[in-house]
């Protein structure tokens, strides 16, 4: 197989293989381009995730927005992936074409080889002349066989050339296509990113405006509700103090009822404002060095008349002072809520016990009652806002369903823990752990950033 035709075929095959290889090279290059594009898109998603973390600091609405953004950039990444898949398909089609080319070259080589098997070629060493002999007794003349051989190998060479040309064109097309797809994807993504940035800016502005509106609303509701209550309670006090003349026993009894209900209304206003503040993401703590034991004592004094009226024994084990860095007003609200729940849900003749201790940088206190307990099906929802236990509604026990959700929010804001244990018909114990030292602002910021 050392004939010039054979060499030509071999050469043509080599060249076409080289061209196919270069087409493959272009394919790999295109893959790399697509890969880089993907990496860029992933980097953009990482940026968005960073933006989301930053948004967490700005409040829940903004967090929701960042989530929305994340979803949007994931969608754009998915779009990019599907673009890449389409590109992959285009490339695999190209390689099928290349192998068809390959097949053609192979087929012509096999045809040539078969034809050659029927002849013997001899070269005269002296003259260099080539003699071709047909091996069997066929009628085919040697000359026409040689001509046929020439034609076949020329055809093969032409096919090879064409294949080479096609492969070159395809490689070029593949490269251009890859470039275009990469460019297109880049442009699509850039437009997306730009639109996202614009939308974030716009929505941020809107959210800020809403925030201001909400702040204004909370402030004016606070003012509007507290102003009439100030008059009601103030004048009641004057009358009860006898400033407007002597008050009969019955009058005083009725006025005390008015006072109690005004107080109830005031607490309700306070609770609703508290919830509004929580919603605005602004539970502000007025941190100071306080004594939890003192706060508990104050709450016990407040609840004692109610407990006595309902024949409930209040037991507290004084355990010395419990220094804590916290918001004294909020902590008093927390203790009030737990104590008033305990008393409300304990039938006459029962007992409410408050215990405290200090250990490992935390203060603990628990409020245990011998009350009606919490039904198992209510336990998971106990800290939900406006949730009322079935036992409360069945017995028509007053309440808004805000007390425990507020207690939980206050404990959370102090980085503490609130838990409970309950046996139906036997009683409930609420346990609170609060760190003695409140977290510093920098720690809070760190945790928010993490």
């Amino acid at each position, binding site marked *: 197989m050392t004939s010039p035709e054979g060499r030509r075929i071999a050469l043509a095959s080599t060249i076409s293989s080289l061209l196919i290889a270069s087409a493959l090279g272009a394919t790999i290059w295109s893959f790399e381009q697509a890969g880089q594009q993907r990496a860029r898109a992933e980097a953009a998603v990482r940026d968005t995730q960073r933006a989301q973390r930053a948004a967490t600091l700005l409040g829940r609405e903004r967090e929701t927005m960042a989530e929305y953004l994340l979803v949007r950039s994931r969608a754009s990444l998915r779009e990019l992936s599907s673009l890449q898949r389409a590109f992959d398909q285009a490339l695999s089609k190209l390689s099928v074409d290349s192998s068809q080319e390959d097949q053609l070259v192979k087929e012509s080589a096999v045809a040539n080889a078969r034809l050659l098997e029927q002849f013997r070629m001899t070269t005269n060493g002296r003259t260099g002349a080539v003699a071709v002999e047909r091996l069997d007794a066929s009628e085919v003349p040697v000359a026409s066989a040689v001509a046929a051989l020439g034609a076949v190998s020329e055809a093969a060479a032409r096919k090879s050339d064409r294949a080479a040309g096609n492969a070159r064109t395809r490689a070029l097309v593949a490269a251009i296509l890859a470039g275009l797809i990469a460019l297109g994807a880049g442009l699509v993504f850039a437009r997306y990113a730009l639109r996202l940035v614009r939308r974030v800016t716009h929505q941020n502005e809107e959210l800020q405006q809403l925030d201001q509106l909400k702040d204004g609303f909370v402030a004016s509701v606070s003012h509007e509700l507290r102003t009439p209550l*100030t008059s009601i*309670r103030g004048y009641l006090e004057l009358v009860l103090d006898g400033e407007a003349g002597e008050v009969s026993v019955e009058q005083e009894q009725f006025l005390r009822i008015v006072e109690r209900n005004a107080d109830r209304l005031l607490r309700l206003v306070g609770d609703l404002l508290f919830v509004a503040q929580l919603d605005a993401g602004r539970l502000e703590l007025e941190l100071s060095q306080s004594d939890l034991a003192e706060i508990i004592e104050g709450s016990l004094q407040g609840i004692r008349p109610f407990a006595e009226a309902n024949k409930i024994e209040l037991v507290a084990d004084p355990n010395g002072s419990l220094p804590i860095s916290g918001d004294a007003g909020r902590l008093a609200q927390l203790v009030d809520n737990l104590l008033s729940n305990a008393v409300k849900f304990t039938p006459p003749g029962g007992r409410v016990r408050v215990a405290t201790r200090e250990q490992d940088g935390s203060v603990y206190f628990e409020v245990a009652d011998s009350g009606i307990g919490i039904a198992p099906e209510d336990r998971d929802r106990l800290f939900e806002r406006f949730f009322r236990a079935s036992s409360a509604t069945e017995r028509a026990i007053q309440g808004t369903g805000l007390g425990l959700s507020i207690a939980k929010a206050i404990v959370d804001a102090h980085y503490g823990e609130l838990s409970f244990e309950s046996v139906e018909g036997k009683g409930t114990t609420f346990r609170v752990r609060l760190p003695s030292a409140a977290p510093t602002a920098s720690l809070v910021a760190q945790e928010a950033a993490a």
Partner: protein
Amino acid sequence: VSELAKDGRPLVLVADDDDDIRALIVFRLERAGYEVLPAADGETALQLATERRPDLAVLDVMMPKLDGYEVTQRLRAQEETSRMPVILLTARAQEADVARGLEAGADDYIKKPFSPQELGARVQAILGRR
């Protein structure tokens, strides 16, 4: 030098835009033996404070025309009223509001709703100190 003491009673300025609350404070303070100058808005309060130089001013924070913070600041800025004790009445109980009041130069603040008796005690505490 305040002009109060024709009869030796201290003069107290009471500014609140709510008629009922203003009347409540006036009643309580008059009962406690003070002479009271009522005002229904911040501008009137500032004018009365400048003209009559009361011994103490009780100012509601949320008032029309001038709010309690602004009245306090202006009182502090005027030579003749710069040392007048001020108690702010605030319906808001946020730390930021309290800080703003004290920054403006208030001597004390009372959160609404307040007990008239407590207000009387605070007024007496400040005037007794002087």
